[in-house]
């Protein structure tokens, strides 16, 4: 759960800064250095895997790119390590952008497999290239220095490493707690929901892949100047796998899990290496067996890793507070947020003519035609399998139409994808709710405000987006109040009842500033009271001038609510008219109840 455990986090981090000043043996400092280096890589993986839902086994290769770049530049060419840092970041970033762009459009498991292959080929490359010293690697790498101050001692490097880690943590936390951050969190939910909020999922996927590679490259740079020599071995696939382990063991969905995972794994490994040969003799590689077995056991015990467990124990003593809070009064510039011009009541806004969708030989939607005027609530009904959802998908851009035209406010949208359609002013909800369960209602709703802001990931990481962020959060909070969920503003969305989750989705859609709201079976699975609350909300929105298209098969629900009904069966329109007329229409009765043959 993403509620604050701030004190615990900073306590943990603070401890590592006090640590080198204690009279501890040098060996511990070395371990601390490695924990820091590993944490930086694992942090990137948390962003990539836990939060964005992409997996990489190839991070060690990016560490290697960072390390070898600076090693080559500072030994063979004799350039400053600081140039090496920049060059390493550029090389890793470009490589990641290339790999990312060829894999992001494929389904989930191709990226991990591509990174396995990539990790291996780069490892062999390091070991083969002449000017990188083949398998001996490069040695004699200079130590870091700043303004003539030598940073070569391990205790000083400890400070440098942990400062870098602290910096990365800050940037990642800032980024996650922003508009681009919410877009990244939405990625884990597949493609449909984020795209319907106007989020360019492919771009954000490449972004987090590049960010994770940059952090790995930074770690490699630090490694090279700490170790003063590099060789291919620590950048092989096994290390790439271990980085992923650290993130998973610590809790791959949690930023602080990265450090916890690095501590646990590094500590465990060094203990096992000392202990096991004493217990079992030294003629086997037992630590790797125990290591493997412990991973399997840990995942059997807790698939989410250690951090949620630690945070849960801590939360018993320190009740959590909400982390993201909307400003209480409208922030500066809130009234300047661009708003769409409202079409005049009664103006034609959605026009579907002869829309058809074929899946191979199956015609799911057959030459449908209907229209919606501004301020109307129209119901699209029909028995199960009538093609309502396909029709819905055509209007929202999830599927392209095979033929026919769909126009919104005069412009054709039948070949646009959902990311562009939402920009034009069509908001939607989902039949099976698409929420990020552990985020608060406010954060979920704010995802809908993605198109209302423009701050870049860099600005967000540097906290230059706070004015805009306040406006967006206030906007989201306003929509939550508008739909009557203000009591649950900071509740995790996953703990709401289904009816409330549907209403949350409406609030999220309202954030996109729609002129037409499309609701996909909003009443399905709701209890009577929930249906009444939903109907009241839709009436209220209509009162505010919103146009609504409801796809439903619950007749009672749409009867009292809609201005007009369109009835579908077998992909075609069989009737259209006022609810009272439809109730007595013979074709409709036959479709719903079975006709007399």
């Amino acid at each position: 759960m993403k509620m604050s455990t701030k004190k615990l986090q900073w306590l943990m981090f603070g401890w590592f800064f006090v640590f080198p000043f204690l009279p501890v043996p040098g060996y511990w400092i070395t371990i601390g250095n490695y924990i820091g280096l590993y944490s930086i890589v694992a942090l990137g993986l948390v962003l990539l895997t836990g939060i964005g839902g992409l997996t990489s086994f190839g991070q060690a290769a990016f560490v290697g790119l960072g390390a070898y770049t600076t090693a080559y530049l500072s030994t063979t060419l004799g350039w400053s390590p600081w140039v090496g840092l920049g060059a390493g970041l550029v090389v890793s970033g470009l490589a990641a952008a290339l790999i990312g762009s060829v894999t992001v459009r494929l389904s989930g498991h191709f990226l991990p497999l591509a990174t396995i292959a990539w990790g291996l080929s780069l490892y062999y490359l390091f070991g083969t290239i002449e000017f990188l010293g083949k398998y001996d690697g490069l040695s004699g790498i200079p130590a870091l220095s700043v303004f003539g101050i030598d940073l070569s001692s391990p205790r000083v490097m400890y400070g440098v490493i942990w400062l870098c880690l602290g910096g990365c943590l800050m940037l990642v936390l800032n980024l996650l707690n922003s508009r681009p951050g919410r877009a990244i969190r939405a990625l884990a939910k597949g493609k449909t929901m984020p795209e319907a909020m106007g989020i360019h999922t492919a771009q954000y996927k490449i972004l987090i892949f590049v960010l994770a590679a940059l952090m790995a490259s930074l770690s490699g740079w630090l490694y090279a100047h700490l170790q003063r020599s590099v060789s291919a071995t620590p950048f092989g696939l096994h290390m790439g796998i271990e980085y992923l382990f650290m993130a998973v063991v610590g809790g791959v969905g949690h930023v602080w899990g990265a450090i916890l995972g690095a501590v646990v794994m590094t500590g465990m490994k060094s203990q096992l290496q000392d202990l096991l040969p004493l217990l079992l003799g030294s003629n086997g590689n037992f630590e790797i067996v125990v290591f493997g077995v412990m991973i399997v056991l840990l995942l059997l015990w807790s698939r989410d890793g250690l951090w949620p467990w630690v945070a849960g124990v801590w939360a018993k003593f320190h009740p959590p507070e909400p982390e993201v809070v909307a400003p209480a009064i409208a922030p500066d510039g809130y009234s300047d947020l661009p708003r769409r011009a409202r079409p005049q009541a009664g103006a034609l806004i959605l026009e579907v003519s002869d829309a058809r969708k074929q899946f191979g030989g199956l015609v799911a939607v057959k030459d449908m035609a209907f229209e919606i005027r501004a301020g109307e609530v129209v119901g699209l009904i029909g028995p199960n399998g009538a093609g309502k959802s396909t029709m819905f998908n055509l209007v929202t851009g999830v599927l392209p139409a095979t033929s026919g035209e769909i126009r919104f406010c005069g412009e054709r949208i039948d070949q646009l994808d959902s990311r562009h359609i939402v920009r034009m002013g069509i908001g939607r909800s989902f039949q099976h709710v698409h929420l990020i369960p552990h985020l608060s209602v406010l954060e979920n709703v704010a995802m809908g405000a993605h198109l209302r802001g423009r701050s870049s990931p860099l600005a967000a990481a540097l906290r230059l987006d706070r004015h805009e962020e306040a406006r967006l959060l206030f906007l989201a909070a306003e929509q939550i109040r508008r739909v009557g969920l203000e009591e649950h503003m900071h509740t995790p969305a996953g703990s709401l009842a289904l009816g409330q989750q549907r209403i949350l989705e409406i609030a999220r859609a309202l954030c996109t500033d729609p002129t037409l709201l499309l609701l996909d079976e909003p009443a399905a699975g709701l209890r009577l009271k929930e249906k009444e609350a939903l109907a009241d909300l839709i009436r209220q929105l209509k009162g505010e001038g919103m146009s609504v298209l409801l796809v439903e098969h619950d007749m009672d629900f749409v009867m009292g609510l809609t201005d007009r009904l369109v009835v579908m069966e077998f992909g075609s329109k069989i009737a259209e008219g006022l609810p009272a007329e439809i109730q007595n229409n013979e074709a409709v009765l036959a479709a719903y109840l079975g006709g007399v043959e």
Partner: protein
Amino acid sequence: MDFGIFAVLAQDGVTNGAVYALLAMALVLVFSVTRIIFLPQGEFIGFGALTVAALQSSQFPKLIWLLIGIGVLTFLVELGSALRQRRYKPLPRRLLMWSVIENLIYPQFIWLLAHSLDWQGMPMAVQILFTLAITVPLGIMIYRVAFQPMAEASVLVLLIVSVGVHFAMLGMGLFIFGPEGSTTHAFTEWSTALGEMPVSGQSVVVMAVAGSLIGLLYLFFDRTLYGKALRATAVNRKGAQLVGIGTSQAGRMAFGLAAGLGTLAGTLIAPLNTVGYDTGFVVALKGFVAAIVGGLASYPLAAAGALLVGLLESYSSYWASAYKEVIVFTLIIPVLAWRSLTSGHGDEE
């Protein structure tokens, strides 16, 4: 390069490609039935080859100790899960009986067999069959212990468990077989010439075995009810369960087959290459590259990919032998780029 070298390289490439094809098949099979990316495949290559080598040099095949150990573990896991479910249903006595036979008695029977017969004098085919009798149950037990309890987990979690199992098996491999590699006897000394091209009997055997296995797999999946049930599980796990297909059985079956195919791949390469306990990993990864070419879904495409990998490896070892591995593993990037451009839209999780 003259035609002679070209032909020899081609023969080499196709021979290796046939082995990769077997591995790619196994990986596609396991992935499509269980969604597990089966990294421990590589260990079966090494274990298989080293066990045949042990039999041929009349050493006791120590892999049996691992079989006995994991058998006990599997039995305990099954007993534990039966006891845990005691509150809801009666103790499944028949199932536990079977579990005792499969996991406790069978490994000891194998142990007895290994001790009581003279394996060195047997024909190689019998030695390979005996090796399969050790490794196939091992694969099934590994599925039962490590994967079946979390069969519903995400692809990522399963992948990590897979890596954990790979590590554990690798470490056990070093302990059991030691760091030294071995080779086995040749299948045949026979050789012939096709025009100007010399053809080794070894290549012929490898291609024939791989080809007929691929044919058998095709028949199995296309013609038998059991094979169709496995394919149904691959398409829709829930749906398969609803029509009465045991998805756990399907998973065990897939692992048994994959372990068997891995072992065979190991025995096929062992007469020509020194195989160590850790050789298999990189070989299996080349099978992976082939499987990815096939999109982890198509058997014929995976086989084609395997041939491509084999040929690429063989020719690049002639022109740029130092970069052989780099070239093979980098192949995956253009392949994925091509798939990405040709696939219509991204899949939904």
